[in-house]
């Protein structure tokens, strides 16, 4: 037992030495996560703000200018151009210079006084998500204006007050940044483990290890523990940046995050081992890894909500460790979720980890002979 632990220790030390001797590798595991976090934190935003808007005001009245002002006041729309002719609208939408056009017909002020005014809103539906959200904002602005006029200063009979819990500003950054942890841990654990194993197969050292007293299970542990350690460092790095730089709230228990991360890391490491058993070269390992990685991300709810997937795919996501992990991470950061709240997700992660590890160990040990 003691000699087995010593052998595993030598493997771990050797592996870490190799990772950090290669400056590219060191950057991949330590700098890349922070860069990716910054990209996701700044660039990837599903918030719809400052939608480029074209205005064709054929009325040029005080009322029409009030309407345009109501659109720009909330920060959701930004008037970037004024049109004089109908044809300019199509051109601006075609070229993508604007995503929405607001057309105020002649006689708007007169019609408004008579209670039968109309305005036209044209959207670029190419990005359906953005168009839907912008449409919602625009409808609300127009309706509020109409209501205001109808009531003439009296209080409405029925008033709706909306409040978003956990993320009151509905900032997509708060939702995305914690989820990046799941993405990066998958990448580090799965891809790097697969590459580390296949590299040894390529240069022939795997055979050298196989004739040494190192047992298959010791080899597996020696190959995975280093990347699990790196994953924990990355977890601290990403969480630290998310909190200190982006001011993402952290309301839950750090220990719950740590525990869930360990379970998730076990799944990713097992995936890496499985990829390594079907890959002869590092290139193959790289490609197979991405083949596994893409569906895992797409079916995780990272970008597209699981609830809006077809039923069959919703069932499939239950086998996806990333799906469960993201639910836990987002909950712990934003909602202060407790272990009891996410017991089903924790159980699912544990089950998936056990199945994947058992498969990986079996395939790995058999592949050796």
């Amino acid at each position: 037992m003691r000699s087995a632990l010593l052998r595993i220790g030598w493997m771990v030390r050797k592996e870490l030495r190799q990772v950090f001797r290669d400056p590219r590798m060191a950057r991949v595991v330590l700098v890349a996560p922070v860069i990716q976090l910054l990209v996701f934190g700044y660039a990837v935003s599903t918030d719809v703000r400052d939608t480029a808007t074209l205005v064709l005001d054929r009325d040029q009245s005080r009322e029409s200018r009030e309407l345009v002002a109501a659109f720009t006041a909330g920060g959701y729309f930004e008037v970037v151009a004024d049109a004089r002719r109908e044809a300019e609208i199509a051109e601006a939408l075609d070229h993508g210079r604007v995503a929405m056009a607001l057309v105020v017909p002649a006689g708007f002020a007169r019609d408004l006084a008579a209670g039968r005014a109309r305005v036209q809103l044209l959207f670029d539906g190419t990005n359906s998500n953005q168009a839907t959200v912008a449409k919602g904002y625009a409808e609300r602005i127009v309706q509020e204006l109409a209501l205001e006029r109808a009531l003439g200063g009296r209080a409405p009979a029925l008033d709706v007050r909306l409040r978003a819990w956990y993320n009151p500003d509905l900032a997509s950054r708060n939702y995305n940044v914690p989820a990046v942890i799941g993405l990066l841990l998958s990448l580090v654990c799965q891809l790097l483990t697969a590459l580390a194993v296949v590299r040894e197969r390529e240069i022939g050292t795997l055979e050298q290890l196989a004739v040494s007293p190192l047992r298959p299970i010791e080899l597996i542990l020696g190959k995975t523990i280093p990347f699990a350690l790196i994953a924990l460092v990355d977890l601290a790095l990403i969480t630290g940046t998310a909190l200190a730089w982006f001011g993402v709230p952290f309301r839950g228990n750090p220990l719950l995050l740590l525990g869930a991360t360990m379970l998730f890391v076990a799944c990713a490491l097992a995936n890496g081992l499985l990829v390594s058993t079907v890959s002869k070269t590092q290139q193959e390992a790289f490609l197979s890894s991405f083949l596994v990685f893409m569906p895992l991300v797409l079916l995780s709810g990272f970008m597209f909500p699981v609830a809006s997937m077809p039923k069959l795919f919703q069932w499939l996501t239950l086998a996806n460790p990333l799906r469960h992990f993201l639910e836990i991470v987002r909950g712990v950061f934003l909602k202060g979720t407790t272990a009891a709240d996410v017991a089903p997700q924790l159980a699912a992660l544990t089950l998936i980890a056990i199945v994947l590890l058992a498969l990986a160990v079996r395939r790995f040990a058999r592949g050796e002979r």
Partner: protein
Amino acid sequence: MTGPAAAVEAKELSRRFGDFVAVDRVSFEVAPGEVFGFLGPNGAGKTTTIKMLNGLLAPSSGSGRVAGFEIGREREAIKRSIGYMSQLFSLYGDLTVVENIDFFSGLYGVGGERRAARRDWVLAMAGLVDHRDRLTAELSLGWKQRLALGCAVLHEPPILFLDEPTSGVDPISRRRFWDLIYELAGGGTTVFVTTHYMEEAEYCTRLALMNRGRLIALDTPAGLRAGAREPLLRLATPDPIGALAALDGAPEVVRVGLFGRDLHVTVRDRERALSRLPERLAAAGVRSDGLDEIRPSLEDVFIALVLAAGGAAED
């Protein structure tokens, strides 16, 4: 040879890959302290046999013992008793010389004072004392191979398997490598080595020749040479290609082949060939600068044995 005392023993060892029989009922014994040469053309089954003996492959049938332990059943005990160096250079290029040595010491449980002593021994043996902190990838091939040998024997195994250890190195490095092998054998280590360099075969105490998965000869180098049945003649000629065409297929000739600038002609009967072949050459207009009988080299013997056994698998 006495059975239980053998360092390596194979009994009817076979390995099939699907329909292909890579090793076909191979049996032999290697005595402790021998330098046992394992020869044969590419694809003859040498590497597959070694892999069955050191536990990398399970035999399809047959049995074997290494250092007294049964292959397949006592893998862990065998692993501790053997050193293995494959034709692929198998050290970590991104680790330094000393880091490689220490890593393998660690795997084999060589610790404490013994580790330091063995490390110094390997560095001295491989001539790397002044390069101990260099990355292994930067070393010359000869150095790498000596270092790989050193790492394979850090734990002082009684048996050492070498699978084409010198492929690709220059003759000087190869010579130095064999000096090391002799040193180890002199210290009592049994060395089991595959090669296809004929001059290396001469260094072995005994030779096994494999072809198409079968063991087709097993003897000392001298014994194998003595067993060659057909006389061998050497023909010196300024036109070896013309001579080859003239003699190939002649009734007195078993086999004819180019050997440097000469022709080696295996014949059925010495006297008859010596009298008839000059006539055939003259008839073809090829000048002969001398035709005489020579002692067959190991290469001649092996080519004859392989052809008699049906030719190499690649032909």
